[in-house]
């Protein structure tokens, strides 16, 4: 089951939009990080079940943060939520091990669907 969700995005409004979409679906423990480095640090400290990751961020971008998180935990489920929907960007993050990519702005229904898929994946992984 998904209990803890990490949101990594430099935009406070993007974090708020995503948070509102998530809690419309169900209550979770939500942790927020303001850039990729903060995301890696909070991932290490909290080991969330699910991570939503932006790509274009200061300090450390989402590609690097995704790579570092996968190095820490190869089974981590990282959903990239980005405005950068160029085919090469999408291919790069999938190659780095993202669970899936969602185009910004994500509708609450898409968030709900993706959390359901993540829960199924976690169930299969954890047994």
């Amino acid at each position: 089951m998904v209990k803890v969700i990490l949101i990594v995005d430099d935009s406070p409004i993007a974090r708020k939009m995503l948070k509102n979409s998530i809690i419309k679906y169900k209550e979770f423990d939500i942790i927020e990080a303001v850039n990729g480095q903060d995301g890696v640090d909070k991932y290490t400290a909290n080991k969330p079940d699910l991570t939503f990751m932006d790509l274009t961020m200061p300090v450390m971008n989402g590609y690097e943060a995704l790579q570092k998180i996968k190095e820490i935990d190869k089974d981590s489920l990282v959903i990239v939520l980005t405005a950068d929907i160029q085919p090469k960007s999408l291919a790069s993050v999938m190659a780095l091990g993202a669970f899936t990519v969602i185009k910004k702005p994500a509708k609450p229904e898409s968030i709900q669907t993706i959390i359901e898929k993540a829960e199924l994946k976690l169930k299969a992984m954890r047994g």
Partner: protein
Amino acid sequence: MEPNLNDIFSSDEKDILQEIMNIAFGNATADLAQVIDIYVVLSVPNIKVIDIGDLPHYIKQNIPSSENTSILQQKFWGEFRGSGILVFPQTSGKDIAGILDDQFSDDGFTLHRQKTEILLEIGNILIGACVGKVSELLGTFVTYSPPHLIVDDSEGHNNLINSFEENQTAIVMKTIFEFENKNINGFLMILTDNESIDWLRHALQNFMESYE
């Protein structure tokens, strides 16, 4: 004196605008990637409020030499109105010509014409996709004038600077981009005037309410 962004937009409104620009620039580069085999590296968008009177200075600061810069402008009209401005350093001329056609000419006149056509097309795609996405997200639509290129000479540069009326406020939304492996970088600015501000604030609130 530079107006304070916080005097015009609340912190939330500024954040919403920045996120909308982030989405719009991402949309614009994806549109470009569909028609040209190119990957665009984007920066985090920056939003500033500037008195129109200070805009010439801002443009001069951001476009240091008119002789080495190609500037493309496209105006848009509607509830949200203003100008999209795309700035490329002119030293990347051959690289720009090479984007669409590897067999570009070495002849100066032909190269210049090819580069102009390509810049107009790239500008049309980037500005149109970016402004179009902002308009879509904010629930309105705009019409466009054809893009035009201001190149090479200080006269064109000065005409651009002098085309803005004084005593107005410009919201400058800027992102720096780089065409990977093409040695081309530049920036895209969306300028809108103070007549659009009331509408923009209202539209930003409406946008956010759909996520409350």
